[in-house]
């Protein structure tokens, strides 16, 4: 086991896959010298050359569109968008092309590409650099949506995403780039897509979350444990397909479900999970998510947006009251 950051783990996973398969390559702005926003590409251009770690012009439509074309023509590109906010400049390429090519061409095409677009609040980067639009892509047929929550996840899920023959929207959480965790460098296996992880076992309520909010939910579970409440915390890891079985089994056992995400609550993917569980099991459900406001800049404002552990704990207590 090696301790490394979430960003380093992503870099490791990418390096392993690039070494394993010469068809894997990446394109985006400032990947060479800068090594990406958080060093996820550090030194890889030196190792694999400028044709496999490609520094591009500031042309988001083309970064994404070129990845689609490259995938159609036989390689496995990784489109690095830096922020999911900038990826909004290439939604047509992702949603109208990548997600649909296989289907609308009747199965003639496959689009094995990864669109990397980090989400979330990092601290003071405000409305145009902090969004979490994962629900959009989970709503889009053809796309797989992945949201890693730990260094080990970030390596293993990235590897699986790169090997996936479907287009994958890969959403690191920017706030986790510096998170430390153990990674087993000897185990080269990808983490299968679509499989949730039970982060904390419990019996009174099921809390489902993903990305950075998983850690906060676990923190809330600690707070609750002190009060004798046993909360099970499930990290979906893959948002689409989400691990229905894991969630249903847990919620059936605990009898209560709370979904928590950093993304805006209204229209967030928590609605999908909560509605499905309510419909299927008839157990009480609740959701916590950001208010429907842009992410503000100043500390107290940004804090006012965030879903903290005590709020999660409070909501759980209300549900159990």
């Amino acid at each position: 086991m090696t301790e490394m950051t979430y960003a380093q783990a992503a870099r490791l996973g990418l390096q392993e896959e690039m070494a394993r398969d010469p068809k894997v390559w990446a394109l985006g702005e400032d990947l060479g010298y800068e090594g990406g926003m958080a060093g996820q590409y550090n030194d890889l251009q030196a190792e694999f050359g400028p044709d496999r770690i490609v520094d591009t012009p500031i042309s988001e439509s083309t970064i994404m569109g070129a990845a689609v074309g490259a995938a159609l023509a036989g390689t496995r590109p990784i489109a690095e968008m830096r922020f999911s906010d900038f990826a909004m400049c290439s939604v047509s390429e992702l949603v109208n092309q990548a997600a649909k090519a296989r289907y609308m061409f009747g199965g003639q095409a496959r689009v094995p590409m990864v669109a990397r677009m980090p989400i979330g609040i990092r601290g003071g980067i405000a409305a145009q650099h902090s969004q979490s639009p994962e629900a959009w892509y989970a709503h889009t047929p053809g796309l797989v949506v992945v949201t890693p929550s730990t260094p080990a996840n970030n390596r293993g899920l990235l590897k699986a995403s790169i090997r996936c023959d479907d287009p994958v929207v890969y959403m690191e959480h920017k706030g986790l780039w510096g998170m430390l965790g153990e990674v087993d460098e000897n185990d080269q296996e990808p983490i299968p897509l679509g499989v949730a992880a039970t982060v904390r076992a419990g019996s009174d309520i099921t809390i489902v979350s993903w990305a950075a909010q998983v850690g906060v939910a676990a923190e809330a579970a600690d707070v609750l444990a002190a009060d004798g409440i046993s909360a099970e915390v499930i990290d979906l890891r893959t948002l689409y397909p989400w691990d229905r079985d894991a969630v249903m089994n847990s919620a059936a056992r605990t009898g209560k479900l709370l979904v928590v995400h950093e993304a805006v609550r209204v229209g967030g993917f928590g609605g999908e999970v909560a509605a499905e569980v309510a419909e299927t099991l008839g157990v009480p459900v609740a959701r916590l998510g950001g208010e429907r406001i842009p992410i503000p800049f100043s500390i107290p404002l940004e804090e006012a947006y965030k879903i903290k552990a005590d709020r999660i704990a409070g909501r759980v207590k209300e549900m159990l009251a």
Partner: protein
Amino acid sequence: MPVSSNLANEPARVVEMFRKMLVIRAFEEAAGEAFHAGQVRGSVHQYIGEESIAVGICANLRDDDLLTSNHRGHGHSIAKGADPRAMMLELFGRVGGTSDGKGGSMHIADFSVGMLGANGVIADGCTISVGAAQSIRLLKQDRIVVNFIGDGGINRGPFMEALNWAKVYELPVLFVCENNQIAATTTTRLVTAGEGIAKRAESFGIPAITIDGNDLFEVDSTTARVVAEIRNGSGPQLIQAMTYRLRGHFAHDPAGYRDPKELEEALGREPMARTEAWLLKNGVDADEIAALKAEVDGEIAGYVDEAANAAWPDGALAFTDVQDVGAPEFPGESR
């Protein structure tokens, strides 16, 4: 006809190309009729009057060269070698269609001949084409990519980004701008600043040439040269093929906005008659041409007949080929 054409001495090759043009024309006429008859739904953008461009370009491509197209993709597909029978089945939404009935007119594709798809979103094919060229480079292949774009489409940002991108990486891409002078109902001159696409391409350092797209021989000879250069590493180039859209924007557009005089003039320059005239002048006799036409018309009529009577796909097919991870389940008969 310019004497420079390398076709001038090859009537047999011209006949072959003319046959492709006839197939396209007949296909488009038939598609339009089927549309009007209510047999084909959705959108049908006919390529009538522009046949010489697709055929002249694609005659100079290898089967494994790649092509990306736009909404007006039937002609490009046929020229690149897609099977018009499967295409007709697709337009009718029947079993055996190029996309199993999932795509229709705007999503005709035949990956087996490098035809990477028509496209319902203007200019999205342009960025796809440069990425395909990057794959080619990475795979150390000597294929090239051709992207068709309309004179309306050149004003979309992604096309302009793709021009820059193709030149930055010196990619083997041939952009073909089919300038039929109109985009839907809009005269493109009125919404296009500057001297046009050739000038714009040159501002990116991309060699650009403007030709008479309705002159099969000029298209062919220009393409032969340009494709050879690109395959030899010239980097991207652009051909602007001047032409005219002889029909409405789509099959149900009467194109009443069209100046009748302009249309009449354009009819005088349309490529079928011009190519035919050349053949007659170069030793192919009228009977042979008539036979060819009859043969092609019969072939296409046969496809229409077949398509109209072909089986409909089962609803379950709607649920396949979406994605492997998280594949949708077929909800079953109970729906």
